[in-house]
Every structure is written in structure tokens, then in C-alpha cells.
């Protein structure tokens, strides 16, 4: 069962958006982490991860999201999530992610809240 996934990156002047599509497991998570690290090394400290096209996640994928939060934290940056399902948001809140990253309903709101 191949898990097809994709990450679209849109870098603007002051922030960048990473939009995932597919199952957020270790493979997609590592790819996402690599792209986020590239942006951070270029000086981006305000990132949005849009999970609107990611219907399923697992705890390994979420652990990689936490690594991105930590990498941004070290540079006084901010990570905002958007496009989460109600269940994903509930899981993120249980894992304390909501304390260290923003959770917003859509991309526009996530960008407006940096």
C-alpha cells in the first residue's frame, strides 16, 4: 500500500507556508522536516504548516512536527498549524503542542496571527 504524499512550499517575504498532502507518517514527516529546516536556515522563523489535505496522521509524524517546533523555538520563531480536523486538533492539544504552536482554522488566520 503506497502512501502518496506531497509537500508544497510557498515562501513569502516574512513567512513561509508548507502544505502537506497524504498520510503524515515518518516518511512525510522527515520530508516536511527537511523542507522546514531549509527554510529556517534561509532565515524564515515564521512558518505555517497547512494540514488540510492530510486526513491521517500518526504519532511518529507528530513527533517530527515537535522537532520543527523545537528548531523554531531555538531561533525565537513561531509555527502555526491550520487545516486540522477536529480529531487532529484534539490529539495535538492532548500532546501539549497547542502550548508551543498556534492552531488556526485556515491559512489566512494562521498567517494573520504571527
Amino acid at each position, binding site marked *: 500500500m503506497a502512501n502518496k504524499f506531497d509537500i508544497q512550499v510557498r515562501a513569502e517575504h516574512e513567512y513561509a507556508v508548507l502544505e502537506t498532502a497524504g498520510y503524515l*507518517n515518518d516518511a512525510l514527516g522527515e520530508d516536511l522536516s527537511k523542507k522546514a529546516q531549509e527554510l529556517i536556515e534561509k532565515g524564515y522563523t515564521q512558518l505555517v504548516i497547512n494540514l488540510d489535505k492530510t486526513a491521517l496522521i500518526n504519532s*511518529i509524524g507528530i513527533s517530527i512536527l515537535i522537532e520543527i517546533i523545537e528548531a523554531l523555538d531555538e531561533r525565537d520563531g513561531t509555527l502555526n498549524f491550520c487545516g486540522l480536523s477536529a480529531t487532529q486538533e484534539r*490529539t495535538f492539544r492532548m500532546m501539549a503542542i497547542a502550548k508551543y504552536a498556534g492552531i488556526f482554522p485556515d491559512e489566512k488566520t494562521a498567517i494573520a496571527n504571527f
Partner: protein
Amino acid sequence: MANTISNDQVLLTIPMRQDMELAAAKLASVIAESMSFNDDQIEEIQLAMIESCINAFEHSKSPDQSVVIHYIIRTNELELQITDQGIGFNPGNRGKRGNSQPDLHSDMRKRGWGLEIMHTLMDSVDIMSGENGTTITMVKSKTA
């Protein structure tokens, strides 16, 4: 791969291979949808199933490298039994900090969330584990 073993039970055996947890989750989704669970409940069932399978894949050290899943359909609830033939574990030691990497924030650990996610998303989670393997039994009720 999936067998219907009675009118209200489905049996699935999956190998411990990358993304095979998706097969178990998708079958759970199909069954839950046929039982008229709502979309949020179906997603909760899928995520709990994924975590249960990943736990077996990562920790069981099962010699046959497979996981057997019973989907038991009842009038108002779906019971999922996920079984491996691995080395077993003490459920009291899971969900604790098993990660050797230090975490930046003490309440935001990276790994060891599987059982807590299952408990959060399902109505009940029972674990029977011994040296001959582990069975995790999870129940989701339509009325909860």
C-alpha cells in the same frame, strides 16, 4: 486479505511492513461507516487503529512479523482486537518517557504517545500482554 468469519466479525492479518497500518485503518473506516458512525468517530477509530498497529510494529519483536485484527460488529459499538505474537510489555511502563533524546519542553515529549492517543480517542482500551504476545482491545460506541 480480509475474511468475514461470521455475519458480524471481520478478520484481517497484516504484515509488519511500512504503511500496512493504513490497510487496517481503512478497513476499520469502511466497517465504521457501514455502522453509521459519524465522520469524527470514524477518524478517531482510524487514528487509534494506526497507533495500535504501530505499537505492535515497533515494539513487539514478533517472530512471525504479523498482526491479527478482529473487527467485531455489535448493534451500537465496534470492538477492535489487535493481536501480535511478540514479547509483550508492561502497560504500566508505556506512555512514559521512553525517549532518550531530551525534550525542549517537559510536557511536550516526542515519543511514547500511542497508548494515550488510543485512550483519548476510544471509549475503552484494554491490554492483555504476556510473553506470548499482546492483545489490545478497543471499543467505540456510537452513542458515546
